[in-house]
């Protein structure tokens, strides 16, 4: 296909020149993967073949566009409207998301538009309708936007299963993936089930550096507040700035600190996932209208609408992974041939080293990324159930189709049959549901036993499982909705407590019908601002770079002077961690013994290691009192010293410990809950629901404990264990650490070492419970009784 004359004229009228990769994509046959930096006209490139193909008309659905964000589909609809109108093309463009009205959905089923814009969840839902073969039979093209982001989690696995279905319903459909810069394009193409890769010109090198500050980074903490004056100065000089911060709580605190110092009253906004949708939309609209000089944001702005006016990105805190840093830098300056400008602000002394290492990686174009695991089975279970909603299916045919999806190409028949058995009978060792199977085999085809199940299954579509969130509302009739907090956080609140949300301090008054009621309290200092406990761990590759930089004094000149001096002192008093060597230190401090292990394995793996090692220490009678994990180090304090860490780091006993003990851990229960929801064992809002105000339903923890006791080999427990190897438990990285650093170097010292000192100042200590939790409960109960005079 070439660009027809009327399209060439249209481009010329806009004063545009088609990018080479846009023409490449037009000429390509079959499936393609376009890798282009932000601002490279990716989306237009993705749609150009459809627009050209559609100029002579098409009956039914022609192009399906899938994006991770609902907001993006609306934006695309607006952008497409222009060429469609200018060129008078016979094309209807509509979107279909969770927000689409029911009447519109019904009409789309009967009379689909030529171009339909949707999300992975809405696509899965549409494929579960009986009319799916009619709707999608005429499909010619699929465009998958922001594929790099979708591939990072289970939404991508579900999307690829849906794509496999689309390829069956519309043989010969051509798929185009659109992606930002990634470390391994071939792997992403394989994820799509194979595609020809088209690389756009990456554009000029970014202008990126550490932000020079008058005060050095503090020893510990993550706020980055020391750099406020310099950040404000940068905002003043730039047109529009995005300030990225890693967590919502830090974003709130930084926003507040920024405003306290904002003497010129520069318009600065705040954007994160816990804010009410209206509040976020206001900020987005103000950004689009060019009314804001800066916005403080979390990952909630990582994807999304292109704002051409942004010319500076400031990253507060270590970027944790190089690829994400590069993608964030790309948000600055969306003109294709201008360099992006970005400044990085390390939040503490350790992060200074990480920032320097990350900058080196950016300059060397050395992106990181963990290889993707095989497609998870809980997603497949959901896919099987939704397939049954569309109509009876043949198991052999479905198995063959699923294997054409990239993430599931290695799926064995036994694994598939396990998932099918789970979907049909629950998959329990005790065959209790023969009469009440969900799926029945009749005339060689699997089908739903009870058609009423369709509704429940469709309600449960999707792989995004949020923590239980509670709405936060100002007290009084019709009080404003401020945002949401995690239920776990809300449970810690006592009336009178103050916390930050949406940039303002509020006081907790009461909990009413699953809503947290608050009053504004502008004068009080917030007690706490905690939302999601999920922090990213530093990537393996970046951790290795940090470790290599720390261990090589000849290269310390690249570090700021104060940081280099700190490492030099450590080298003199103890020693520096080296690649290949696992360094640990034991020293006394204030009447207790301290053990520091410099594992450079990311906070999740080191947290898990802390849980496992303290358990072994408790068994050995060393009296561990608590531990703390950062991305670089694990610190444990105890009554007796660790003199030989060897046995504590024994791979076999760590593995055994993981199996026995961590299995009962809250992190595992949370993992199980997500797996159980995705697989369809429990609903997001279980029947009997929380909102009725009647007895809340029992928690998934009870199911987890019951399965572990009575059916320990159940499919969902196996999936849960598999997930624990990555994610929050991240056991694979403990193994990687032991592989990467086979030699132990343990030092006994008489006082706190320079490298360990910042750890002692960090927040996030985990007390060791053992019998302690029960004692804690007893003490609290006794105190309450005493307070009430009931002893």
């Amino acid at each position: 296909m070439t660009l027809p004359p009327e399209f060439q004229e249209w481009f010329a009228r806009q004063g545009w020149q088609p990018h080479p990769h846009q023409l490449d994509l037009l000429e390509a046959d079959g499936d393609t993967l376009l890798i282009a930096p932000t601002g490279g006209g990716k989306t237009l490139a993705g749609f150009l073949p459809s627009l050209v193909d559609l100029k002579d008309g098409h009956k039914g659905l022609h192009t399906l566009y899938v994006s991770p964000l609902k907001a993006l589909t609306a934006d695309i609809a607006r952008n497409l409207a222009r060429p469609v109108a200018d060129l008078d093309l016979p094309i209807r463009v509509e979107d279909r998301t969770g927000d689409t009205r029911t009447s519109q959905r019904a009409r789309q089923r009967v009379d689909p538009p030529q171009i339909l814009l949707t999300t992975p969840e809405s696509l899965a839902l549409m494929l579960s309708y009986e009319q799916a073969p009619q709707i999608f039979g005429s499909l010619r093209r699929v465009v998958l936007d922001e594929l790099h982001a979708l591939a990072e989690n289970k939404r991508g696995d579900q999307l690829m299963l849906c794509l496999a279905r689309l390829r069956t319903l519309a043989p010969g459909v051509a798929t185009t993936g659109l992606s930002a810069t990634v470390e391994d394009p071939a792997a992403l193409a394989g994820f799509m089930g194979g595609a020809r890769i088209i690389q756009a010109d990456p554009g000029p090198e970014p202008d990126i550096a550490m932000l020079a500050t008058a005060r050095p980074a503090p020893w510990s903490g993550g706020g980055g507040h020391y750099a406020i004056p310099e950040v404000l100065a940068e905002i003043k000089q730039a047109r529009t700035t995005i300030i990225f911060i890693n967590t919502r709580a830090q974003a709130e605190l930084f926003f507040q600190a920024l405003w306290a110092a904002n003497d010129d009253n520069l318009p600065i906004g705040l954007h994160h996932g816990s804010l009410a949708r209206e509040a976020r939309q206001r900020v987005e609209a103000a950004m689009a209208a060019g009314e804001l000089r800066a916005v403080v944001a979390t990952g909630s702005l990582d994807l999304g609408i292109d704002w051409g006016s942004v010319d500076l990105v400031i990253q507060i805190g270590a970027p944790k992974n190089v690829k994400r840093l590069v993608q964030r830098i790309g948000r600055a300056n969306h003109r294709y041939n201008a360099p992006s400008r970005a400044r990085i602000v390390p939040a503490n002394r350790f992060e200074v080293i990480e920032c320097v290492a990350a900058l080196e990686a950016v300059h060397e174009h050395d992106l990181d990324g963990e290889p993707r695991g095989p497609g998870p089975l809980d997603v497949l279970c959901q896919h099987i159930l939704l397939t049954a909603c569309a109509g009876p299916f043949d198991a052999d045919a479905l198995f063959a189709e699923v294997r054409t999806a990239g993430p599931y190409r290695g799926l064995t028949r036994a694994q598939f049959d396990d998932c099918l058995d789970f979907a049909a009978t629950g998959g329990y060792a005790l065959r209790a549901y023969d009469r009440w199977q969900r799926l029945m085999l009749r005339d060689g085809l699997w089908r739903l036993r009870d058609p009423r199940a369709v509704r429940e299954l469709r309600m449960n579509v999707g792989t995004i499982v949020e923590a239980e969130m509670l709405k936060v509302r100002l007290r009084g009739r019709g009080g404003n909705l401020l945002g949401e907090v995690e239920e776990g956080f809300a449970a810690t609140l006592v009336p009178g407590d103050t916390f930050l949300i949406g940039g303002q301090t509020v006081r907790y008054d009461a909990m009413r019908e699953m809503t947290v009621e608050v009053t504004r309290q502008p004068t009080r200092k917030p007690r706490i601002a905690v939302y999601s406990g999920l922090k990213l761990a530093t990537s393996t590759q970046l951790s290795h770079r940090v470790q290599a930089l720390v261990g090589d004094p000849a290269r310390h000149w690249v570090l700021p002077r104060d940081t280099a001096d700190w490492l030099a002192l450590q080298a003199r008093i103890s020693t520096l961690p080296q690649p290949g060597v696992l360094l640990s230190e034991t020293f006394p401090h204030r009447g207790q013994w301290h053990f520091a292990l410099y594992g450079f394995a990311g906070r999740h793996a080191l947290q898990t290691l802390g849980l496992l090692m303290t358990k072994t220490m408790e068994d050995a009678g060393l009296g561990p009192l608590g531990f703390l994990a950062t991305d670089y180090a694990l610190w444990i304090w105890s009554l007796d010293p660790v003199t030989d860490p060897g046995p504590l780091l024994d791979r076999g006993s760590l593995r055994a410990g993981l199996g026995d003990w961590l299995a009962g851990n809250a992190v595992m229960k949370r993992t199980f809950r997500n797996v159980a929801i995705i697989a369809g064992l429990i609903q997001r809002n279980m029947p009997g629901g929380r909102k009725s105000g009647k007895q809340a339903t029992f928690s998934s923890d009870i199911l987890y404990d019951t399965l572990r006791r009575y059916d320990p080999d159940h499919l969902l427990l196996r999936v849960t264990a598999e997930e624990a190897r990555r994610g929050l438990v991240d056991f694979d990285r403990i193994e990687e650490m032991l592989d990467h650093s086979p030699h132990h170097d343990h030092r006994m010292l008489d006082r706190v070492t320079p490298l360990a000192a910042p750890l002692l100042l960090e927040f996030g200590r985990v007390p060791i419970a053992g019998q302690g939790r029960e004692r804690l409960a007893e003490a609290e109960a006794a105190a309450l009784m005493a307070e009430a005079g009931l002893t």
Partner: protein
Amino acid sequence: MTHAFDFAGHALEARPSGALYWPERRWLVVADLHLGKSERMARRGGSLLPPYEVLATLDRLEAEIVATDPAAVVSLGDGFDDDAAALALPDMLCDRLRGMAWGRRWIWVSGNHDPAPVCPRLPGETVDELTNGLVLRHQAGQGPDVSGHFHPCVRLAGDRRRCFLVGRDHLILPAFGAYTGGLAIDSPALSALVQQGLAIACGGSRALPLPVGAVRQSGRRA
């Protein structure tokens, strides 16, 4: 460890399992077993939950019977998730229940979930309420009475625990069944029944008493 307390002039014991023991009569009282809950959900086209909840509940109940050797066991209503669930109980589990009832009285108080008399394969008798010394019924009525139905729960040190709720007029038992949710004691339904008194938290190795007024005043502590 159990917690001993007085209610309506009788000395009673709250056991950490959520069972109530009445030493004077040697009665063991459990509320809201909800046996057959997973079977009922499956029958109605819902989720196929792990079908082990009857087993798990009976394991715990048997341990209580072994520990207390009661003269009578009282299921204080909603012993079954519905009447059909009682009929669908596998023979093996009926045998087990008969074994547990051997040599003692077994009384099923009917609840809103299981109004009909239990099926002939099961041990014991079915009554609407018991009135000898103490009034025992499924749902609290004219006090003083001992009841279940509400599945009271309390937050303690960050955990949500099933609890007894002891007021002047009403003693409300926690749900004993494995797959049972809970209702916070500060919910309107429970506040209306017990304004002042004790919540006795279960689930750990000890039954822990807490003053109800104080818990409500200071909100949900964690």
